């Protein structure tokens, strides 16, 4: 039952939010309380998985290959924990004020729907169910993106919708072909039964279809163009939610499906993924350097760093995969924080264009220093969490003799430092442009808008201090991912007969 709660609680909260009178302060309180409850559940799921190993819930008590299975191994539990943390920060940031028109149009319940979809995608053990959760979270995010009237926002929403629906069509195609071959949809059953009867040609086609579908969602080169075209338009809290969670769902699904279904590390798809990850890193960061808008710089950085999270899968070693998982966790936290930071500028200056920013360090040094931590953490400046995560990804490359790849990753890190230093210099350090009015400069940023940022920054620091224990957990999570038999046994048991076709 515990496993269903991260899905049921947001659903319940969303329903309650719909029933409450719109435009009341109660909405924010209920949404926040709901997110806190999910955080509590996520913590207890994590504790249970740490203690007892993989948790399984057969929904409706249908035995494994026939019904829908919810599974939480360490990787899922970590991701669920991170989702709930970001959920708390995003719903908490609404206390600082939400555009009343959006609030009346169901802003709070849509956020809960997205959180529900993400949690479902992380917990499901059934590949068609994964597709359904993708659609749930996409619909939620579509509506969140398009609760606007301006042309740029509508255009961004259309790009986002079109490309993501294309990805869903690819995913559905791959699932259809997979079912035709294997006759089952349960991931554990697929992992057990399918390798025996695959045909090499279809195998390659399927893996490429999955790579394309998840690659679009994760934002891999050359499929990432929808991301920087759309993530800079919605309000900061929505940006933080989407940037922190949606691409990571793509990465999660890629790691989960590929480790279970394509366990041959010499398959050509991993070579393709390796090259694409490296190109993604380089292209993303070069794109970031060319941008003159705080949120666009962040969007390109988001794309660039996705390369770090998929490269561990391509390298296929427990150490590299563990490093990548650590990178996913760190990146979710930091990129959400930075999108919330962009909300500070939106509030104070009504823009995130770097040309119009500056002078914040002079008026509010404490806020500028608070923002410095996630910026430098993303850049990987020691001893912050980004550094730990980068060491986790790059050390296995050196150990495995992938020197060229390690060089690329290190150069990209250097470019990130450059991009982040420039961002801080332009947005906080340089004197404010003459045009900006004195009142805008000196309006203080209130506590409600700073509290969620401080909360996430505190967690980034915690991730830095407890880097040792956390990375040992991610290593164990990677070990679990690569050891398919434990996963299969946890779900199917020893004696369950093969599903009749």
């Amino acid at each position, binding site marked *: 039952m515990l496993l269903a709660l991260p899905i049921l609680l947001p659903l319940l909260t969303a329903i309650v939010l719909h029933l409450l009178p719109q435009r009341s302060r109660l909405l924010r309180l209920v949404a926040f309380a709901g997110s806190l409850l999910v955080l509590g559940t996520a913590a207890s799921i994590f504790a249970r998985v740490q203690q007892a190993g993989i948790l399984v819930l057969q929904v409706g008590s249908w035995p494994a290959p026939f019904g829908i299975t919810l599974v939480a191994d360490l990787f899922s539990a970590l991701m669920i924990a991170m989702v709930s943390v970001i959920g708390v920060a995003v719903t908490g940031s609404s206390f600082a004020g939400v555009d009343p028109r959006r609030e009346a149009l169901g802003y709070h319940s849509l956020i809960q729907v997205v959180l529900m979809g993400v949690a479902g995608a992380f917990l499901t053990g059934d590949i068609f169910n994964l597709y359904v959760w993708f659609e749930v979270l996409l619909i939620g995010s579509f509506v969140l993106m398009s609760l606007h009237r301006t042309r740029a926002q509508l*255009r961004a929403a259309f790009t986002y919708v079109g490309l993501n629906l294309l990805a869903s069509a690819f995913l559905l195609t791959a699932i259809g072909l997979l079912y035709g071959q294997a006759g089952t949809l349960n991931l554990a059953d697929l992992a057990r039964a399918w390798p025996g009867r695959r045909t090499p040609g279809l195998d390659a086609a399927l893996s490429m279809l999955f790579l394309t579908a998840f690659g679009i969602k994760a934002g891999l080169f050359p499929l990432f163009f929808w991301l920087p075209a759309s993530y800079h338009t919605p309000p900061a809290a929505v940006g933080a939610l989407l940037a922190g969670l949606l691409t990571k769902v793509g990465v999660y699904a890629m790691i989960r499906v590929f480790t279970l279904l394509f366990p041959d590390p010499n398959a050509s798809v991993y070579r393709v993924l390796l090259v694409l990850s490296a190109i993604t890193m380089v292209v993303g960061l070069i794109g970031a350097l060319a941008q003159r808008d705080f949120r666009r710089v962040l969007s390109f950085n988001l794309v660039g760093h996705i390369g770090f999270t998929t490269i561990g899968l391509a390298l296929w070693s427990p150490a590299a995969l563990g490093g990548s998982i650590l990178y996913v966790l760190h990146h979710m936290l930091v990129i959400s924080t930075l999108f919330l930071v962009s909300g500070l500028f939106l509030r104070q200056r009504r823009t995130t264009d770097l040309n119009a920013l500056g002078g914040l360090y002079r008026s509010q040094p404490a806020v500028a220093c608070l923002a410095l931590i996630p910026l430098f953490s993303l850049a990987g400046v020691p001893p912050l969490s980004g550094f730990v995560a980068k060491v986790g990804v790059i050390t296995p490359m050196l150990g495995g003799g992938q020197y060229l790849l390690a060089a690329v990753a290190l150069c990209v890190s250097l470019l990130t430092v450059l991009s982040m230093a420039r961002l801080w210099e332009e947005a906080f350090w340089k004197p404010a442009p003459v045009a900006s009015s004195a009142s805008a400069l000196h309006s203080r940023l209130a506590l409600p808008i700073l509290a969620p940022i401080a909360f996430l920054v505190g967690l980034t620091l915690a991730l830095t201090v407890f880097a040792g224990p956390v990375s040992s957990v991610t290593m164990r999570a990677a070990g679990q991912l690569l050891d398919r038999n434990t996963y299969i046994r946890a779900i199917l048991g020893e004696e369950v007969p093969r599903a009749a076709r």
Partner: protein
Amino acid sequence: MELLLAVVAGVLYAAGLYLMLRRRLAQLIIGLILLSNGSNILILSAAGVTRAKPPLITEGLPLEQFADPVPQSLILTAIVIGFGVLAFSLVLAHRVHQSTGSDDIDTIGPDRA
């Protein structure tokens, strides 16, 4: 029959992708419809088209007599999801048309304000 379905699915995919590459929103939406119908037909044909009874299984009869109900339930789910998404994107396109008077993606352009 399977060959015919495979060809139909292929044509739908090709037409859908071609339409999605166009600039007009209406064509993009029609492309999406064709694409989702193409994948539905693909699921049906990939899982094997058989002449068999509906899967109301009476004990003792060999299972080969009955059709596999799973692909059909997958398609049903996909149709429902596709319908919802289609309705949403139609509304979105309508909003774009209302605010810009055009359904050409390039003329939407950046904000003038």
